[in-house]
């Protein structure tokens, strides 16, 4: 009877401990996910937040490094939006991948996260949009060129090469693509402007600064 009691006690203890361990680990994951959710959008697997993390407005861009409209927005509108809203602390910015245009698109997105491992995500992101060529998959974003971009940013090439060749961030990029599809983004660039009070506005395409200004100002 005593032996039986001890056995039941041990089994009960194991079950309780297991439940506690499973619960605590899942709650950590949930906490991390919650930390990077902007209303309905999970940006956990996207870029780091650029700008004031507690800003009233969050701008989430879904883009492709081979998309010429993303290039146009990056070179024509982004600077003004940043000067007036991100640099002033009114808004912050997150980039997510909707890498669908060609075979080099997902690889370029993965490379950006390999650069993030060494603290140079945004430098690498900018480098890609500055180096973009008009022809998709013509080799400007193949593995060799992606490594050359990393080299020009003085990244540790052993770390970067192993990261890129092992496709370490393939699932992360795919998660972002799935997230974009879930949100109904069907092209690049697609922006979600999210206000602190839960307001959300979707902007499709490389729209002008005046549109961003009007939408953001209406949320502040």
């Amino acid at each position, binding site marked *: 009877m005593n032996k039986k009691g001890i056995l039941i006690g041990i089994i009960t203890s194991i079950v309780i401990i297991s439940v506690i361990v499973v619960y605590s680990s899942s709650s950590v994951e949930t906490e991390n996910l919650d930390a990077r959710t902007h209303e309905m959008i999970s940006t956990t697997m996207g870029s780091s937040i650029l700008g004031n993390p507690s800003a009233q407005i969050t701008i989430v861009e879904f883009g*492709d490094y081979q*998309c*010429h*409209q*993303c290039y*146009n*927005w990056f*070179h*024509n509108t982004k600077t003004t939006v940043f000067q007036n809203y991100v640099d002033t602390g009114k808004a912050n910015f997150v980039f997510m991948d909707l890498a*669908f*245009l*060609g*075979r080099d698109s997902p690889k370029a997105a993965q490379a950006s996260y390999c650069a993030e491992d060494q603290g140079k995500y945004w430098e690498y992101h900018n480098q890609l949009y500055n180096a973009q060529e*008009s*022809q*998709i*998959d*013509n080799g400007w974003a193949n593995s060799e060129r992606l490594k050359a971009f990393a080299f020009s940013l003085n990244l540790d090439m052993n770390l970067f090469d192993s990261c890129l060749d092992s496709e370490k961030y393939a699932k992360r990029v795919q998660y972002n693509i799935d997230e974009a599809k879930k949100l109904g983004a*069907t*092209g*690049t*660039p697609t922006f979600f402007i999210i206000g602190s009070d839960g307001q959300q*506005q*979707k*902007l*499709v*395409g*490389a*729209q*002008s600064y*005046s*549109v961003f200004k*009007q*939408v953001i100002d209406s949320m502040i």
Partner: protein
Amino acid sequence: MKLVFSNIFYVALSITIFSFLLFGLFILSEYLFLEPYIVGHIQQGTEFGFVLIVILSALSALVIPMNIYRINILKKSKGKMGGSVFSSFIGSVAGACSCGPIGFAVVSTFGSVGATTLAFLTSFELPIRIGAITLLAFTYYTTVKSLKIECKVR
């Protein structure tokens, strides 16, 4: 040309083709946005593409009604008509299938084959449009020439 466009039906057809192509391509090529409100915007560096869309739409609006006139009134062959519609179509899809919803739908539906086609049409958008315009201009020239001869004979 006067002969064709003296008929109100062909004028209406021409205006319809021009408006449909112009506004359709402006929206697909992201010169015109309908949401969150209607706004036009020409990004720096995309001015040439804008001009090509206007030329393509104008030529299509001229050439297609003239060839429909040839078929309806003069009962002539449909060869030129096919050429002009083909040029308009190719010139249109060249820029339409880029980063936008059509490109996304093509890749989602046809996978790697769709992606390769999309990459080609996007990469060579401007040369394809210039080619389509050249073909339309040539069709316009031959149509005007043949209409002169055919109408004199009648």
